């Protein structure tokens, strides 16, 4: 085979190689591959009958120093952040109970709609042991809002406000010993890829406070996969 044709093939191979290389670099660079799977916890009596029950624990911190982002809080130590990871997976057609420890302070939310509970079983949540269906829009710390694509499959929408920890209860350094603990249960449909994010504007110093931590994967948003058990 002469130089001309060989060169053509080589160029194509090189080009494809470059694309694969750069591609996997970009994919790896921005991907937080760590996924937290829900832990089974017997079964639960729900309106839809007796479903397998799973639980997930997560926390919200006022910064990224809790270690989930590497030493010294990684690239953005001052970003508010969920932890320990931001990607979760839960089984399909089952009841999932999520417990969120909220360590951050807060203030008025821009959209009171997200101060109410949406899409949980019987429309309520339990905050520090108290059952409630909404918190005052003035006392929201963050929200956990789960949503996904509109397609042939059934669509999950769960949104829960997380009560703030008042400024005065915040210690000088480190995290408060008394985070607000929010527990809520919802029923997953069929398998599918969802995302969750915080709807409380906490990307300080950016337009509409939705940049920075809010627009960076691995902080206040992530993937939430419903998989067939």
């Amino acid at each position, binding site marked *: 085979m002469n130089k001309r044709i060989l060169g053509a093939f080589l160029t194509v191979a090189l080009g494809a190689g470059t694309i694969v290389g750069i591609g996997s670099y970009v994919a790896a660079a921005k991907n937080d591959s760590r996924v937290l799977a829900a832990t089974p916890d017997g079964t639960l009596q729900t309106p839809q009958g007796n479903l397998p029950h799973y639980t997930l624990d997560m926390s919200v911190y006022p910064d990224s120093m809790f270690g989930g982002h590497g030493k010294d809080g990684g690239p953005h130590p001052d970003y508010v952040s969920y932890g320990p990871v931001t990607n979760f997976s839960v089984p399909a057609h089952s009841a999932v109970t999520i417990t969120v420890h909220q360590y951050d302070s807060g203030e008025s939310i*821009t*959209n009171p*709609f997200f101060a*109410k509970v*949406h*899409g949980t079983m019987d429309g309520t949540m339990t905050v520090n042991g108290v059952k409630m269906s909404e918190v005052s829009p003035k006392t929201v710390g963050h929200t956990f*809002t789960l*949503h*996904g*694509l*509109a*397609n042939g499959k059934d*669509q999950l*929408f769960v*949104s829960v406000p997380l009560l703030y920890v008042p400024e005065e209860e915040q210690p000088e350094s480190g995290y408060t010993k008394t985070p607000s603990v929010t527990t809520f249960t919802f029923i997953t449909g069929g398998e599918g890829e*969802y*995302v969750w*994010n915080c*709807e409380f*504007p906490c990307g300080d110093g950016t*337009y*509409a406070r*939705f940049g920075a931590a*809010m*627009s*960076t*994967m691995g902080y206040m*948003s992530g993937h939430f996969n419903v998989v067939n058990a």
Partner: protein
Amino acid sequence: MSDLQTKKPQWWKSKDVKITAALWVVLSVLIGVISGIVNSRPMGQPASETMANTIHIMKLFTWVSAPVAGLVAAIAIKALMQKMHFGDNPPAEADHQISDSPKATALWLIVSALLCLFALVFGMVVLQRDNNTLLDVHATDVNVTGQQWAWNFDYIDNGKFQSEDLYLPVNKPVHFHVTSLDVVHSFWIVQMGIKVDANPGYITETAVTPTKIGVYDLRCAELCGLLHAYMQKKVHVVSQQDYNNWVTSHGGTI
């Protein structure tokens, strides 16, 4: 095009012209039919009169432009049908020096101007029809709020309740007042063929009358940041009865 040879007597008897004309007819029909199907198939069944009009108008435009496309294709194919010359040196010069043809150009200009005018008038008519639904006094008013990266809806006519889902009664005009809390989003109900941007600081309006019971898609049509792809919702069009039940179940009033 065949006016090119008006200098010759009875140019229409020339073989080229006959073949081209035949090709033209065949291709125009083919293009019209095929692209008609190609257009309407993916768009699926319309869920509103607006969407029906849109599909109709696109079919129409296709058929209007088919003869033009057909003519261009016919001439191109006719040109390609001749014996082609490959190789490193040019073929013999063409057997003519025609560098202009007032009749052909005039004809072309007039025809394209007419087609353009037609498309325009027709578009205006449909546009007018759509605007009218905005003015319907019986319409249900719904405030739509876009926020990175979720929608929510205020049913201000039914006792001011909020909802994360969009439920609409069938065959009843709905009037959307759309706004945004942060960046520009775009409120798009795919199968109903309506769309309007949600701008921060402004309220924009659009209206539609759903004509078919079913579940449809609301998608954000303007890049709005990190999770733009997931800023989607299902739109439920239900019977008046089911709608009332849904409203009362959400603490609204009929």
